[in-house]
């Protein structure tokens, strides 16, 4: 552990890296199915607030908070996904950005709205100041176990009929539909799974950071999550995990001041998409690096 600590990765940083790896998986699922959704930050916020309200106001355990947070994020994903997933690329991106903003604003004003409806004073989300003083309940083994289980399930999924449907939809939605794949069902199932993962990451994250505010789940967070998948690549599920780990560790390792992080993040996003379209974890790229011969296949087309 000392080696890690000496390069700036303390156990707490490592926990944030693992949380972000979960977020990376969450966006990986939708991208792998060819859906460019930026709704993950919104679902993360739903999970975070649900989880914290359960553990703080209702004295529930983290496990209950995790399950309910995931469940709620998944439930919200159903009415959102059904209409929105009919849209494609840029339009889907815009609609999900809109969803994210609505979630942020609703969390911001939740107390006021609930207060008007019930006629009593409500103090649950506590407006723009957010909820502070949340105890650190997330343990390292929670995250490792969760990530391991999810990783296993995703490997199983990708080898299943359902997983192949996902890839088929990404490659050509029309053709997939003609082959008898239920495109609407598959897309919505994936969207729900992605939302549940984001919700889980939200619960874990909220019980690490101590303070959550609605603005922490806005457009900037959505872009951060996207950056995990872009850096790591979406060829395999490992890509977004690596992306999440790397992008969280990098600022700590470089020990850069807060104001330079944006410069670096922006540059990484731009340079990776321009020069490494497959991301870091791209088998074609590595084959090209290690064997000095031209790749057998052209670089994989990106999802979306």
């Amino acid at each position, binding site marked *: 552990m000392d080696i890690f600590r000496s390069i700036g990765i303390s156990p707490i940083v490592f926990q944030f890296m693992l949380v972000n790896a979960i977020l990376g998986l969450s966006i990986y699922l939708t991208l792998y199915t060819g859906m460019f959704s930026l709704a993950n930050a919104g679902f993360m916020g739903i999970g975070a607030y649900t989880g914290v309200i359960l553990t703080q106001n209702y004295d529930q355990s983290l496990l209950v908070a995790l399950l309910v947070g995931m469940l709620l994020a998944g439930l919200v994903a159903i009415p959102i996904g059904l209409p929105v997933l009919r849209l494609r690329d840029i*339009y889907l991106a*815009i*609609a999900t950005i*809109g969803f994210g903003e*609505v979630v942020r604003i609703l969390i911001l004003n939740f107390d006021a709205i609930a207060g008007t409806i019930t006629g009593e004073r409500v103090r649950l989300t506590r407006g723009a100041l957010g909820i502070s003083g949340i105890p650190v309940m997330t343990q390292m083994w929670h995250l490792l176990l969760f990530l391991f289980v999810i990783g296993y399930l995703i490997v199983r999924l990708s080898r299943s009929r359902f997983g192949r449907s996902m890839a088929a939809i990404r490659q050509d939605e029309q053709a997939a539909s003609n082959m008898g794949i239920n495109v609407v069902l598959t897309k919505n199932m994936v969207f729900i799974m992605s939302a549940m993962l984001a919700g889980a990451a939200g619960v874990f994250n909220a019980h690490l950071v101590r303070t959550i505010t609605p603005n922490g789940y806005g457009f900037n967070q959505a872009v951060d999550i996207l950056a995990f998948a872009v850096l790591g690549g979406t060829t395999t599920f490992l890509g977004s995990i690596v992306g999440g780990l790397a992008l969280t560790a990098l600022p700590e390792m470089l020990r850069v001041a807060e104001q330079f992080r944006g410069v670096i993040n922006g540059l990484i996003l731009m340079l990776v*998409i321009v020069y490494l379209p497959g991301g870091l974890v791209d088998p074609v790229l590595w084959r090209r690096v290690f064997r000095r011969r031209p790749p057998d296949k052209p670089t994989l087309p990106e999802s979306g």
Partner: protein
Amino acid sequence: MNLENINWLQQIANAVWLGGVYSLFALGYSLVFSVLGVLNLAHSALFMWGAMIGLWFVLQSGLSVWLSIPLAMVGSAILSVALERIAFAPLRKRNAPRISQLISSIGASIFLVSVAQLVFGTQPQRFPMGSIPTDMIAGLPFRITPIQVIILVVALALVTALNLMITRTKTGQAMRVVAFNEKTASLLGINVGRVFLITFALAGALAGAAGVLYGLAYNSMTPFIGEQVALKGLTVIVLGGMGSIQGAVVGGFAVAALEVFSITLGGSTYRDAIVFALLFVVLLVRPQGLVGQKSVTRA
């Protein structure tokens, strides 16, 4: 709430000048989308840089605030062209999916905003006292400052100029051909690369102008003012129909009106929620926008 006490003329006046700024901002968004088919999310960063460049000239060299408008337009146009070269051109040459260009523009946006934070700091900055006329124009049934009138006039002038340019000039014609079909355009001997550069320069200039005007109106500038309009600009172009020039103008005024009246009627709390809910609904119900044509006849 007592509806009698609302000065409706005042609300309309507020909506109209704000609409001018929104239209101007959304126009550049829309222009790039119609010609290149990409969504440039760094447009709001150019808007912010425009405001900052204008402010910088006024503070450093004591220029009049009016001269800062063209300077900001030039500055943002240069940035916009650089953006095209660095963030969009390599992807276009590789025939990368449109989403890659969207992602690269997000990266560019984060980069530009962070650099602005390093250069200008994060504290709100103002135009010096007395450089902006603040007295109300007398003799009207509503309160409006000269600056708000000027903002509206400048915005409308620029919108008209752009519209004339696109419909009446050779370059505008070339832009419309490229918007219709890039391959056809280059077969017809149009220098497509040049058209892209002109498009980005124009979009940057419009964003810069909108930025300065917004800065003059609120007189409180931080590197984050772009974020305040970025997503609203999205609503404007979605509402107006992606890539439609007239739509961007109509959408700009519609969103401004919606915002002003939702504050009057429901308080500022739900203003943004209403704007984004609208974005959501329009995309689902009428993706071609209010003044929509089908996407083949963009621009």
